[in-house]
């Protein structure tokens, strides 16, 4: 049983080629089934994003597995030839596959390192594999581990903390002014796409109230519904500006809508509480003279770009820490994989049975101190024979199925039934692995709300994917 991956990414292949290999969601099941028809392929998962297409598979033999997956990829598009594809592929097996999957899921291999989308995409790929029953014990464990590694990387490093996109940079900057955004009010002036994205991010970060205004009152109302905000008549927004901590301006107007005097007045009304303005409109809608107003912080689209650029460097530094975490976790999963070979499991099972027998015997014989040696022997013999008969069937089954395609499932099951891993692994992962259908639920519930939103709303994708 070996775990391998074959694929290509933005680092090895041009976008034209990646496009050819991409399988539409509707035909994912078909593709996975085709993958499983190759001999020696036990489990399979197809991960695809706009930056990569990768096949993860559990196979009998590494070499034949490589060629099977390679053939699968070549055959995935009629116009594709092996000569065309081969120079762009990478092949990993064993540890390197695991490390690769962990790095990919933790967004260390992404074009924009630290971007949050990849995690959702891995979850999608895993869900497809579960739905079509192409994922088994090993892939389940591996992918779930990869997801938890990604979360660990996120919480223990600042790799994902920094802005990935221009609209998110607005959130970062707002946080540098206000710290916590939870009691803040944001005002949207105009309905530009970027402004809506920024507003969405701000709401995700807890902004309490949304005020919005557009020239078109109907549009203002639909937007108010979308953001659960309160519309303000366009003519009055300047006088209402003092209520807003954050103002995002994005209209099609060709002149300045907000002057330095407007902001000055708002700041005065706010008793010098800082006000944060973002102008994402081109041409600009907020007079650059606002920069001179005390306690007002104005950022235009170029400033936001610059912030993103700075963050890229910061992320590179953090990725070193993240790599170390990924490596650490590879060692953990490797240990688990080793237990899936039959022999250590049989040994552990025998030892467990022996331990229980011995412990119970000691207890019982301790109480029956008056027994003769012969009686003792009879009792010991009785205990041994019960224990041996009880585990005999399991041992025989393990030996016979170990090499079959379901071997890993049996071995894993035996380890659970007899509690052979107690104290070694955190139980959370065991819970997740109970069965394929349950696992599919787990993935869904385990993913936090924000990620689900990222996945569900394709609108976010164009930025992060680039």
């Amino acid at each position, binding site marked *: 049983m070996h775990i391998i991956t074959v694929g290509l990414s933005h680092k090895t292949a041009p976008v034209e080629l990646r496009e050819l290999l991409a399988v539409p969601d509707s035909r994912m099941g078909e593709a996975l089934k085709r993958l499983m028809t190759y001999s020696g392929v036990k489990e399979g998962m197809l991960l695809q994003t706009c930056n990569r297409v990768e096949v993860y598979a559990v196979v009998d033999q590494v070499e034949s597995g490589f060629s099977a997956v390679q053939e699968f990829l070549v055959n995935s598009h009629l116009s594709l030839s092996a000569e065309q594809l081969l120079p762009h592929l990478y092949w990993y097996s064993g540890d390197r596959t695991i490390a690769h999957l962990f790095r990919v899921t933790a967004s260390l291999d992404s074009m924009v390192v630290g971007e949050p989308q990849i995690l959702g995409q891995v979850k999608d790929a895993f869900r497809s594999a579960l739905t079509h029953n192409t994922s088994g014990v090993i892939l389940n464990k591996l992918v779930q581990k990869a997801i938890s590694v990604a979360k660990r990387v996120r919480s223990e490093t600042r790799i994902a903390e920094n802005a990935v996109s221009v609209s998110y940079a607005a959130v970062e*900057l707002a*946080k*540098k*002014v*206000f*710290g*916590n955004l939870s009691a803040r009010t944001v005002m949207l002036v105009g309905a530009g796409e970027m402004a809506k994205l920024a507003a969405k991010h701000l709401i995700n970060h807890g902004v309490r109230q949304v005020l919005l205004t557009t020239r078109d009152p109907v549009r203002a109302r639909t937007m108010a519904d979308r953001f659960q905000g309160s519309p303000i008549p366009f003519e009055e927004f300047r006088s209402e500006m003092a209520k807003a901590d954050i103002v995002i301006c994005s209209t099609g107007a060709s002149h300045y809508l907000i002057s330095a005097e407007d902001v000055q007045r708002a700041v*005065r009304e*706010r*008793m*010098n*509480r*800082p006000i944060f303005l973002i102008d994402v409109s081109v041409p600009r809608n907020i007079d650059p003279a606002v*920069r001179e107003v*005390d*306690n007002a*912080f104005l*950022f235009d689209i170029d*400033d936001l770009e*610059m*912030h993103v650029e*700075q*963050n890229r460097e*910061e992320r590179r*530094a953090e990725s070193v820490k993240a790599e170390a975490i990924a490596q650490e976790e590879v060692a953990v999963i490797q240990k688990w994989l080793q237990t899936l070979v039959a022999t250590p499991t049989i040994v552990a099972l025998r030892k467990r049975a022996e331990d229980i027998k011995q412990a119970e015997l000691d207890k019982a014989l301790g109480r029956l101190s008056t027994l003769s040696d012969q009686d003792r022997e009879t009792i010991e013999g009785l205990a041994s024979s019960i224990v041996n008969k009880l585990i005999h069937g399991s041992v025989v089954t393990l030996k016979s199925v170990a090499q079959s395609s379901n071997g890993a499932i049996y071995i894993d099951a035996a380890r659970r039934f007899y509690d052979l891993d107690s104290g070694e692994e955190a139980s959370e992962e065991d819970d997740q692995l109970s069965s394929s259908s349950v696992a599919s639920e787990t993935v869904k519930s385990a993913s936090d709300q924000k990620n689900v939103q990222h996945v569900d709303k394709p609108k976010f994708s164009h930025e992060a994917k680039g």
Partner: protein
Amino acid sequence: MTVVFFQLTLGLYFLGTVMFLVCLDRRSEVLSKIALGLAGLGFFTHTIALAFQLLSGDDLKWVTFHKAMSFFSWSLVLVFLVVAIRQHLYVLGSFILPLAFLSLVSTAILPTEAPVLHPMFQAVWVHVTLSMLGTVGFAVAFVAGLMYLMQERLLKSKQFNVLYFKLPPLDFLDKLNQRSILLGFPFLTLGILTGAISAQITLGAYLSWNPEQTWAVVTWVFYLFVLMGRVTVGWRAKKAAYLTIVGFAGVLLTFLGVILKSSGVSVS
């Protein structure tokens, strides 16, 4: 023994200060943690030194300028360690530790073993301790104001450099500024009251308008205005930052008054 620990403390604060200043330009958190460790170690030796001094049977306790400054430095580091560790805000050390170090150095340089106030009034150390605690509050407010102005400038000029990433949000700094003053003010008030009482006992007058007393009163009135101004006319954010920096200058002048007085320039 006390002297050895003081020198040790001085050395540790110095190393910590240097480390923290180096950290300003580095992303690495390891350096900051080392610097924090040095500060912590310095605080430890400082505590021992102060304890020795207390136990040595010195009745006057904090009454000399030397000891008062040492106590000030010690409290400042204590406040810093608490805030830095709880808020995970190591960058504070780059600002507070130099201040603590300089205060401690001043005790080594200035020839001020003479008592600040007439030792006849034994409880004079209460006055000194309270005033020093008030001063710690204003020192933290001063540092918060300084950091506020720096972060404000970085944001305004769009310099998203290492310092920008390290400095906390403006709102946090503004709140730190306000809270430090709010905490420091009652201590200063009590410090001034006890000072007036001890002056009455030792000099026969509550207020004799010597430089020290004058500046203490001016400082007190100033901070009162700063606190009230925030609520009434919006003296917050940048304005509050400027005001607390000015206010701290007043505090330093008060100290100067004390030094002048205790070196015999003024009435004693």
